[in-house]
C-alpha cells in the first residue's frame, strides 16, 4: 500500500520502528499531491523543499535514538489562515498575497515540537468567510469524491486534502461550521474543540469570540493523537483556558448508559432524504450501543442562531479586518496619492465580494445609533442560546444533529449569499455557545457523496465527544481510512 494511505498512528509506528523513513512518507504524500492537484486544487502552497529537509531531520533524530514526538514523521497540512513563519499565509485573499508571517502560530509550534512535518497550506474561503471554498481568491477546491461538487467550507482545502490522501492530518478553523461541514462533505472526521481549548494565537482572526482551530483526520485514533497535541493553555492567548489537557483515550463503551439528545421534530422536513435516513440510522445505532435517545428542544438556537451569528461575526470581522490597509503587510495599491487613497483602493482591490459584504454589514451593525438594535441584541440572543443548550445538557450528555441539511452541493449551486448562510443552521449555534462539536462519516449516498453526522457536547466534553464519534463512525472508517479517495 502506498505510504500516503497510512494513518498518522501507523506512520509514527513505522517511522519509529524503522519500517520506513519519514522522507519516504513525505515523498509519497508530495507525489499524491502532484497526482491529484490538477483535479482537486486543495493547496495554495506546497513546501516541497522545506518538507523534505525537515523529514531528513526527523529521520536523523530517530537514527540517533531520539524520539521526535507523538507525531513523529507525520505530514500535516495547515489551513492558509494559520500563520507559518516559513511559508506564505494568504488566507486565500489577494490582500495577503505572498505575505510570510514573522512568527509561527502556537499550534504550528506544537505540531513541529511533536515531530510532524508541515507539507503545505490549504485553500479555503477568503478569510474563512464562506461555506464552500468558492470564495477563495485563488479559485475553488473540488470535492475529491465528485469534482463537480464543493468540498464544503471554509476549510474545504484541508478537508479535501485529507480525504484525497495528501496527508493523514490537516488543520482547519471553525467559526460557524467551517470544520464540521467540510468534514461531513468529504467523509472524514473534523472537530471544533470547546472555545478556549486550543490556542488562537497565530490564527488570522475572523470572528474572535467564535473562531477555533481544529483537526481533520481519516481515523479516530489519528484524531486522538492530534487533539492531544493541539489542546492546551497558551499564555499568548487570553481566551485560552488554563486547565488540564483532556485525556483522549479509546473508549468503546462510551455510549453505554448515556443520553443522546435528538431534535427530530425541529429538523423534520429540513433535511435531504439521504441525510434524514442517515440520522435515523445513527439514532438506532446509538440505541444499539447502549444509549438512551431523548428528544430535546433547541427552538431558539435553530430559529434565531443565524440572525444572531450574522450580526456578531461580521461585526467582529469588520474590526479584525480593518488592519489590512497596505501599510505593514500584504498588498498595497501602488499609486496612492494619500493615506486615505491607499486605504480605500487597497481594500477595494484586495478583498473579494463576500469579505466586502461582511465587512460592510459588520461596520453597519456597530455604527452609531445601531449598536443597541443589532450588536447588543445579538449578544443577548447569544446568551439565550447558551442557556438553551445548558438546559438541554441537564437532560442529555450529547446532541446528535447533521452538520448540514444536505450533502455536498454542486459548485455554483448557491444563488445568493443568504442561501449559503442558511446552510449553516446546524453548526452556527455550537460556535455561539462555545461548545465542542465533531463530524464523523456515516456512509455514502446513492451518488457516492459522503454523509456525515455531528455530535455536540457541553463545554470541555471534547474527549467524550471524540469517543462517541469514534464508536459511531467505526464502520465507515474502514472505507475512508485507507487514504480516502482512490
Amino acid at each position, binding site marked *: 500500500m502506498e505510504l500516503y494511505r497510512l494513518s498518522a498512528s501507523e506512520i509514527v509506528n513505522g517511522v519509529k520502528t524503522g519500517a520506513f523513513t519519514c522522507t519516504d512518507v513525505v515523498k509519497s504524500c508530495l507525489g499524491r499531491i502532484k497526482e491529484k492537484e490538477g483535479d482537486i486544487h486543495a493547496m495554495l502552497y506546497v513546501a516541497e523543499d522545506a518538507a523534505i529537509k525537515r523529514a531528513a531531520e526527523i529521520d536523523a533524530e530517530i537514527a540517533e535514538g531520539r524520539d521526535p514526538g507523538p507525531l513523529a514523521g507525520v505530514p500535516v497540512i495547515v489551513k492558509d489562515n494559520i500563520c507559518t513563519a516559513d511559508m506564505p499565509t494568504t488566507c486565500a485573499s489577494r490582500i495577503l498575497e505572498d505575505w510570510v508571517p514573522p512568527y509561527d502560530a502556537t499550534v504550528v509550534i506544537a505540531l513541529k515540537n511533536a515531530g510532524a512535518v508541515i507539507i503545505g497550506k490549504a485553500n479555503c474561503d477568503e478569510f474563512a468567510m464562506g461555506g464552500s471554498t468558492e470564495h477563495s481568491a485563488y479559485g475553488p477546491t473540488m470535492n475529491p469524491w465528485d469534482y463537480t461538487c464543493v468540498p464544503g467550507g471554509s476549510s474545504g482545502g484541508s478537508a479535501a486534502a485529507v480525504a484525497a490522501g495528501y496527508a493523514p492530518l490537516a488543520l482547519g478553523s471553525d467559526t460557524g461550521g467551517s470544520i464540521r461541514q467540510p468534514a461531513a462533505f468529504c467523509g472524514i472526521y473534523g472537530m471544533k474543540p470547546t472555545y478556549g481549548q486550543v490556542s488562537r494565537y497565530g490564527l488570522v482572526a475572523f470572528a474572535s469570540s467564535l473562531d477555533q482551530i481544529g483537526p481533520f483526520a481519516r481515523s479516530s485514533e489519528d484524531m486522538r493523537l492530534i487533539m492531544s497535541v493541539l489542546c492546551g493553555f497558551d499564555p499568548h492567548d487570553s481566551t485560552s483556558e488554563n486547565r488540564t489537557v483532556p485525556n483522549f483515550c479509546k473508549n468503546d463503551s462510551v455510549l453505554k448508559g448515556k443520553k443522546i439528545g435528538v431534535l427530530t421534530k425541529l429538523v423534520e422536513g429540513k433535511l435531504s432524504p439521504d441525510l434524514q435516513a442517515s440520522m435515523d440510522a445513527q439514532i438506532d445505532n446509538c440505541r444499539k450501543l447502549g444509549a438512551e435517545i431523548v428528544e430535546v428542544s433547541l427552538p431558539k438556537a435553530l430559529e434565531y442562531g443565524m440572525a444572531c451569528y450574522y450580526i456578531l461575526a461580521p461585526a467582529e470581522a469588520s474590526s479584525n479586518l480593518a488592519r489590512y490597509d497596505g501599510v505593514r503587510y500584504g498588498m498595497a495599491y501602488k499609486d496612492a496619492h494619500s493615506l486615505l487613497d491607499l486605504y480605500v483602493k487597497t481594500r477595494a482591490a484586495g478583498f473579494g465580494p463576500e469579505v466586502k459584504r461582511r465587512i460592510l454589514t459588520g461596520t453597519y451593525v456597530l455604527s452609531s445609533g445601531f449598536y443597541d438594535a443589532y450588536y447588543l441584541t445579538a449578544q443577548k440572543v447569544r446568551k439565550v442560546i447558551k442557556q438553551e443548550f445548558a438546559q438541554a445538557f441537564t437532560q442529555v450528555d450529547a446532541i446528535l444533529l447533521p452538520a448540514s441539511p444536505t450533502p455536498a452541493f454542486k459548485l455554483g449551486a448557491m444563488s445568493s449569499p*443568504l442561501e449559503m448562510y442558511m446552510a449553516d443552521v446546524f453548526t452556527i449555534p455550537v460556535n455561539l455557545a462555545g461548545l465542542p462539536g465533531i463530524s464523523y462519516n456515516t456512509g455514502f449516498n446513492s451518488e457516492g457523496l459522503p454523509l456525515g453526522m455531528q455530535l455536540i457536547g457541553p463545554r470541555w466534553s471534547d474527549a467524550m465527544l471524540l469517543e462517541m464519534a469514534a464508536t459511531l463512525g467505526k464502520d465507515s472508517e474502514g472505507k475512508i481510512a485507507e487514504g480516502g479517495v482512490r
Partner: protein
Amino acid sequence: MPRLSKEEVLKVGKLARLDIAPEELDSLSAHFNDILDYFSKLEELDLSDVDPFTMEDSQPIRLREDEVVPYDNREAILDQSPSRDGDFIRVPKIGGDK
C-alpha cells in the same frame, strides 16, 4: 425595518475605508436590505431580562508579569511592509482629501 439607500451604503463604505465601485453598489444594497430584513426576526424575542455580559461560563482575564520579553525578529516585521524605509514604515500624505 429600515432599508438602506445607496448613499447610505456608500457612507458605510467610507466608514470601513472600502471604495465601492458603481457596479458593486446595486448588489451590495440589495444584499444589505435582505440581511437587515432577516435580522428583524430577533425583534420577536423578549430580551428585557437578559444580561449578555455575566461570566458564569468562562475564566476571568489572566494577567502577565511586567517583564521584558525581547522579540528577535524585528527585521521580518519591517521587511514584510510594502513601504519600508530603513527603520521606518512610510505612508503617503495624511489628510487633505476632500
